[in-house]
């Protein structure tokens, strides 16, 4: 009986050591494969650059030939957007004040370039580290989400309550979905929680004038007029950018510890 117990005890100590060892190998491999910080930086820049298209002072519901009533709005002209992609992202409706007609074109091109650059980064990283992850599901599903968002212009103003689209922040949800796909591929809890936080910010930016929050907190001095919509992009944009830098720094520190 004693021999049997000794054998089992040794087996258990061995098992614990093997599990700890396997866990450390798993973390090191994930670290070598992970490029999620880059995606955060890229999409953070995409969101912040979009501010250029969100303070067009000459555009308003009236100036674009549209007027709204309690239940509907009418337009005298349907050619209210420019570029290849029409409306659907950013400027989903002519009632979105201060949003450039080029906003949708910007979002589509910028998000697609962002997806491509993330894939390219993962590819280059895999060549140098020797660990090839699964990045194509991200490319395919994120591009599909973007295409669906563009195609949604036909029904977005009918089936979705106005509060969701009237600030022209739908593109943030496309980015949030793309990051959620990346989080699922990376299987990293901290990154998943961070992406969940971005989903919350995307929802906040769609439903609420973040400029009120900025003014209450004393950030900046004048968020009125054509600048009113900018905080709705500054907050999620900075969140992604700062998060990307933080994830990069943490990864680098872990890498040095090895």
């Amino acid at each position: 009986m004693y021999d049997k117990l000794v054998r089992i005890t040794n087996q258990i100590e061995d098992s614990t050591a093997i599990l700890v060892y396997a866990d450390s190998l798993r973390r090191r491999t994930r670290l070598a494969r992970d490029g999620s910080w880059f995606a955060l930086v890229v999409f953070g820049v995409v969101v912040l650059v979009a501010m250029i298209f969100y303070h067009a002072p000459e555009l308003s519901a009236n100036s674009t030939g549209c007027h709204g009533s309690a239940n509907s709005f009418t337009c005298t002209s349907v050619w209210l957007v420019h570029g290849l992609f029409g409306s659907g992202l950013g400027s989903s409706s002519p009632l979105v004040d201060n949003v450039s007609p080029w906003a949708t074109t910007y979002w589509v091109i910028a998000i697609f370039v962002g997806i491509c650059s993330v894939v390219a980064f993962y590819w280059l990283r895999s060549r140098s580290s020797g660990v090839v992850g699964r990045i194509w599901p991200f490319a395919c599903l994120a591009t599909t989400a973007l295409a669906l968002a563009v195609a949604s212009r036909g029904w977005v103003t009918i089936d979705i309550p106005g509060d969701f689209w009237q600030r022209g922040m739908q593109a943030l949800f496309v980015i949030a979905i793309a990051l959620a796909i990346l989080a699922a591929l990376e299987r990293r809890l901290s990154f998943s929680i961070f992406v969940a936080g971005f989903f919350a910010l995307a929802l906040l930016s769609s439903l609420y004038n973040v400029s009120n929050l900025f003014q209450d907190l004393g950030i900046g001095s004048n968020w009125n007029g054509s600048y009113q919509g900018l905080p709705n992009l500054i907050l999620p944009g900075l969140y992604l950018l700062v998060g990307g830098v933080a994830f990069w720094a943490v990864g680098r520190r872990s890498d040095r510890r090895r």
Partner: protein
Amino acid sequence: MASDSLASSDESPVKGIDDVVHQRVRLGVLTIVNEARRVEFQFIQETMGLTAGNLSQHVRVLEEAGLVKVTKGSAGRRPRTWVSVTRMGRTALLVEVDSLRSLVERVERSGGSTP
């Protein structure tokens, strides 16, 4: 005695442990390749601190058991060897890790005393 119940248990605590996988290096290789679509041989070697010959032997055992797949390629002029996990390998790894965890948990539940 806490360990008596463990020793006299009907079900062996080492049931489910596969001899091919239940080896420190081979379990390590499977753990690494399970985290990616494919991993370069050199990365495994450097991460585990093994010689090329030693790692080759273990990879061969895993390959013969159908747990990993080895492919040769090149990046520019540099030849590369890639190791990827098979479906069978992924299952074997999960079973092994579950077995090890349940073994440790059983002891912890029964008091964790050692003779």
